[in-house]
Structures are given as structure tokens and as C-alpha cells.
């Protein structure tokens, strides 16, 4: 069976779901950030697969993938900076312990 | 399996391949992969020999001269000695990571040589994204070093690994920016096309880019004077303290393989690669690489080791602004200068380089203003 668009989309969906599961269940903030990266990558796979199979002459999907990478890089930088400053203040990065705003 | 796929084959640019270069048969790929790996290992041995002899002479010593004529067999003796040693696995190491680290470090070094143009088109894979591939893959070997440093469960190796990461993260930026200057001139990412574009070697057109790339490259592969990740006086041996036997040999190979890689890259990007009169092409390529290695060992024998804060300051305050200015100046020159008048750039760029380095070196002090560069 030749690899088609559906294969890539299913791969993308599985990766996205795994990332989603991790992002919602993990307690370590850095691991949550990693899971978000996996989700962004899953979206990128879907983008590039659409670009390859539906509009191969336009490359718009790849352009969007590049923008998603830029946003991911910015998000990682700021996110890790926030995590490190939280760690400095409170000496933990367990999301269950960071509950100052909880009523 | 990936190689035989039509999609990847179509990534290769068939026009720039020489007529007698193999393309279609899988055993050609296997054969030439083995040849490239063998060349790398032989050159690494040659580099080790050359470094030891040259440093010896620069310190008024002789260097190894006992094994074989002129000590030529010394690297082989070294390799045999290291391989025959007992491979010790300390108790508290993270076993899987500890065993995988040398392989993760070694694999990128070999795979980069797939896109290195030893002759005109004489490369395993003429990728369209050649230089980008080189920069991308070389960052994987940092992960190997970090794995080694972390899994050894040794404070010294962890400090060393942190230094590796800090150095690579900071110096990646000047490296990429100075490569971008070259790419503006060559108009292609393919390594072979970069060499083909060098009617004038880019070291003349990009003197500032060359200096930035050379210094930042030295820091990335942690050669002296930026070898503070294995500063023996502070942190014993760096990230491979706990390694012995064949695993240590692999790290040694990575270290000198990266040196060979950097000299080949400089030869390709700035010195005109395989281009040159009279001699065969591959000989020019190797000769330029050896010349670069000579300069690297010369610096190694001369300069004292920098501190970590000096290293960071050099990256962010000195190299980064200079690389940015170089990129902007090159872009303006490429846009405004008419076709075929590249030689005008040579004196202009040399003047700009001299002025910028004078201006910036006045501002950057090392060691509370006592030792100044």
C-alpha cells in the first residue's frame, strides 16, 4: 500500500494526541513545554503533507510550517525563561504547586 | 533504504556530478561511503601526528619520533594503546545514555563528510541545502557530548557539558551569520556550487566573515584557546572523564574529526576548495585543509586558555556585531556593485575589516583591563 495523504494525517493526529495527553497530565512544567513542541510538530507534518499532496506547486504549507517554527522558537525561549524565573522564586516547577491564583 | 528512494535521489543535483561519478547503484554508495569514512580516519591520524610534531617543534621539543620513520606510526600506536585498554563502566552511570553518547557524537561527524566536495562534484551527495545540512547535523554532536557529560554522574563532566552547550548556543549565531555572507556571494546553498562560485577566493571578498567564522568555529569545536570544556587544570578532562577504552577512542575521533571538518569547511567556504592550478583537485582540497589545521595548531601552541565569561563576551560583544555588520555590508555590495566587478570589494572590505576590528577591540577588554586583546 503506497503512502498517501491519509497516512501523514493519521501520523500527525497520533502525535498531536500524544502531545495533548502529555500537556494535560504532566506536572513538570518543562515536560509540558516539550509536549507542546510535539503538538506543534504534529501540526507541521499536517501542513507539509497538505502542501505536498494537494497544492504541490504552491508551497504555502511549507511557508506556514516555517512560521510555526519561528513561533515555536520564540515560545520555547519565553516559556523556559518564565519557568526558570518561577523556579528562582518558588524553588519548584511542579504545576500542581504553583496555585497562588487558585481561589 | 532511504538512499534508493526516488524522492531523495531527485534531491541530488545531477548536472554538477562528474560523468564518471556513480549515481544509481546501491553498492557504489556503500563503496564510496566506506572510502569517505576511511579518508576521514586516515586524515584524523595525520592531523594527530601533525599536531603533536608541530606543537613539539613550537615548544623547542622534537615530538614523537620513535615509532616508525619520523614517528609516523605514532597515531596507530596511540589508537592501539587506547583500544586495548579496559573499558570501565562506573557504578552510578546512566547505562544506556552512557553507552549511546559516543555514537551520537560520532555519527554527525561522519555524515557531514557526505556533502564535502573533495573534487569537482566528488562528493557522496550534492544536496541542494548542503551548507544548511552541515550546520544542522553538526549541532547533533553537541547532544552526544551533553549525554556523555550528564550520564557520567560526575560533577566535572557535567560542568564541562554545560560549558559545551553554552559555547555552542552562543557561537552558532556568528557562525551562521558569517556563512550567510558567503551565501550572498555564491547564491547557492550547495557546497559544490559555493566552490564553483569562487573565481576569487571568498577570503579576499569576506575577510571579516572569515575571521568571525574561524574564531567562532574554533569555539564550536572547542579547540584551543577555547578549550575550556576540557581545561585539565580546573575540571580534569572534560565531559569524557569517565570514559575509557574504545568509548574514549570514539570521543578522541570525534574531537579530531571535528577539527578536520572545520578545516575542510573553511577550505570550501573561504579558500576556494578544490580549485587551484597544476595539482589534482583533491590534493588542493586536502592541502588547504592542512594549511588551516597548521594555523589552528599554531594558535593552540601560542594562546592561553580564555575564561568562560571572556568566551561569552567575545561571542556576544565582539563577533555578533561584526558578523551582522559584515552581512549588511556584503548585502549592500552585492546589490549595488555591477556584474563582474567583484574585485572592487577586495580593498574596500579589507579597509572595513581593519577599521571595525580596531574600533571593536578597543572596547573589549579581557581580565579587568590588564590583559587586552
Amino acid at each position, binding site marked *: 500500500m503506497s*503512502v498517501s495523504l491519509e497516512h*501523514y494525517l*493519521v*501520523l500527525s*493526529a*497520533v502525535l*498531536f*494526541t*500524544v502531545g*495533548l495527553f*502529555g500537556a494535560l*497530565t504532566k*506536572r513538570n512544567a*518543562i*515536560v509540558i513545554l*516539550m*509536549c507542546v*513542541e*510535539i503538538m506543534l*510538530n504534529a501540526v507541521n*507534518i499536517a501542513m*507539509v*503533507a497538505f502542501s*505536498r*499532496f*494537494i*497544492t*504541490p506547486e504552491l*508551497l504555502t504549507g*511549507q*511557508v506556514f510550517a*516555517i*512560521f510555526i*517554527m519561528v513561533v*515555536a522558537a*520564540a*515560545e*520555547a525561549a*519565553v516559556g*523556559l*525563561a518564565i519557568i*526558570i*524565573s518561577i523556579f528562582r522564586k518558588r524553588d519548584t*516547577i*511542579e*504545576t500542581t504547586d504553583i496555585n497562588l491564583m487558585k481561589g | *533504504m*532511504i538512499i534508493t*528512494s526516488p*524522492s*531523495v535521489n531527485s534531491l541530488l543535483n545531477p548536472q554538477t556530478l562528474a560523468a564518471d561519478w556513480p549515481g544509481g547503484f546501491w553498492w557504489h554508495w556503500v563503496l564510496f561511503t566506506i572510502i569517505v569514512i576511511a579518508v576521514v580516519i586516515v586524515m584524523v591520524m595525520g592531523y594527530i601526528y601533525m599536531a603533536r610534531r608541530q606543537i613539539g617543534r613550537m615548544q623547542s621539543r622534537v615530538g614523537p619520533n620513535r615509532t616508525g620513520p619520523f614517528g609516523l606510526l605514532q597515531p596507530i600506536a596511540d589508537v592501539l594503546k587506547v583500544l586495548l585498554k579496559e573499558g570501565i563502566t562506573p557504578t552510578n552511570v546512566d547505562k544506556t*545514555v552512557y553507552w549511546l553518547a559516543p555514537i551520537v557524537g560520532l555519527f554527525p561527524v561522519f555524515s557531514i563528510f557526505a556533502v564535502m566536495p573533495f573534487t569537482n562534484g566528488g562528493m557522496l551527495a550534492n544536496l541542494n541545502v548542503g551548507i544548511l545540512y552541515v*550546520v*544542522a547535523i553538526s*549541532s*547533533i554532536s553537541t*547532544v552526544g557530548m*551533553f549525554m556523555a557529560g550528564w550520564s557520567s554522574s560526575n560533577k566535572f563532566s557535567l560542568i564541562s557539558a554545560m560549558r559545551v552547550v553554552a559555547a555552542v548556543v552562543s557561537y*552558532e549565531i556568528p557562525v551562521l551569520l558569517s556563512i550567510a555572507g558567503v551565501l550572498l556571494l555564491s547564491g547557492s*546553498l550547495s557546497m559544490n556550487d559555493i566552490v564553483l562560485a569562487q573565481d576569487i577566493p571568498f577570503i579576499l571578498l569576506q575577510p571579516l566573515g572569515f575571521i568571525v567564522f574561524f574564531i567562532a568555529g574554533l569555539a564550536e569545536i572547542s579547540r584551543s584557546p577555547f578549550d575550556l570544556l576540557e581545561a585539565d587544570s580546573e575540571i580534569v578532562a572534560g565531559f569524557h572523564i569517565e570514559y575509557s577504552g574504545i568509548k574514549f577512542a570514539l570521543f578522541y575521533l570525534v574531537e579530531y574529526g571535528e577539527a578536520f571538518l572545520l578545516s575542510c569547511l573553511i577550505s570550501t567556504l573561504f579558500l576556494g576548495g578544490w580549485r587551484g592550478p597544476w595539482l589534482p583537485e583533491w590534493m588542493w582540497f586536502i592541502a588547504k585543509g592542512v594549511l588551516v589545521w597548521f594555523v589552528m595548531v599554531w594558535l593552540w601552541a601560542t594562546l592561553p586558555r580564555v575564561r568562560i565569561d571572556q568566551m561569552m563576551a567575545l561571542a556576544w560583544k565582539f563577533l555578533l556585531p561584526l558578523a551582522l555588520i559584515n552581512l549588511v555590508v556584503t548585502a549592500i555590495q552585492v546589490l549595488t556593485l555591477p556584474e563582474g566587478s567583484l574585485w572592487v570589494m577586495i580593498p574596500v572590505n579589507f579597509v572595513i575589516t581593519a577599521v571595525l576590528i580596531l574600533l571593536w577591540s578597543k572596547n573589549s577588554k579581557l581580565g579587568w583591563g590588564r590583559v587586552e586583546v
Partner: protein
Amino acid sequence: MGVDIAFWVLAIVGIAAAIAVVSLRNVFHTALMLILCLLSVAGIYVTLSADFLAAVQILIYVGGISILIILAIMLTREVQHGSLSNKLRIPVFIVAAVFLGVLIFAMVNSPWQISSLPPVEPTTPALAGKLLGEGGFILAIEAAGVLLLASILGAIVLVREK
């Protein structure tokens, strides 16, 4: 044929690595598995004939983001505590499974209009034209540049010691 084998190998490696990321307890191993997952995604890009994107993926994710993540792990000393789950484990698993089912159902049953054109080769000049040329995404690029600058400044301000 080669593309098929490559796809299956890369897909299985990628999914296995992703599952390892969410299930391993050692945070450093998690980061290494993330790197493996990102590398296999780069391989997936190659099978989709997006060579430039594959190289950029390795450069940004493996060379940049994962190194930063490892650095953050080291700075926060959370390796000993491990990466534990919170109380929502089972409900989230059910929700994720249902979500995956819906996604796959929608994807498989949608009538995609597959184009038979060959992919653009090489992609680098085409992408450059798309990004920077007439009618391209030059405004978005400028915005991305501003975003990156803002995030760098923000990160520096956040982690700066008083």
C-alpha cells in the same frame, strides 16, 4: 517503495519517541526522546520532499530548542523529582482517545482533492520566492522578526538577576 519503508520506520520511531516523552519518569531521558522524535519528524519532511524544511527542523529544534530545554532542565534541578502525572490521568486519556478517534474519522472520510503534479524541486529558491518575492509573505516575515526580537528581549528581562 523506498519512501514507503522510510515513512513507516520514521512514523513508528516518531510515535514511540513521543509516547516515551509522556511516559518516561527521568526528565533527561524525556528530553533525549524528544530529540529523537524531532529528528524523525525531520525525516518525515524528507519523505515529503521538503528538504529545506528538514534541515531547518534539525537546525532549530535539535540544535536550538532541545538544547535550551536540556539547559533549563539542568538549571532547575528537577531530574531527581522525575516527571510525574497529575490526578487527571484517566479522564484525559479517555478524552484524548475520543479526540484521536474523531480526528482520524474526519481525516479518512474527507474527500481530499489530491493533486497529481510532481512536487517542486528544489524547494529552497521556490520558498525564497514565496517568502520574499512579489505577493509573498514579506509582512509576515517582518512580524516574525519583531516577534523574535520581542521574545529575546522578554526572555532576557525575565531571567535577568536583579
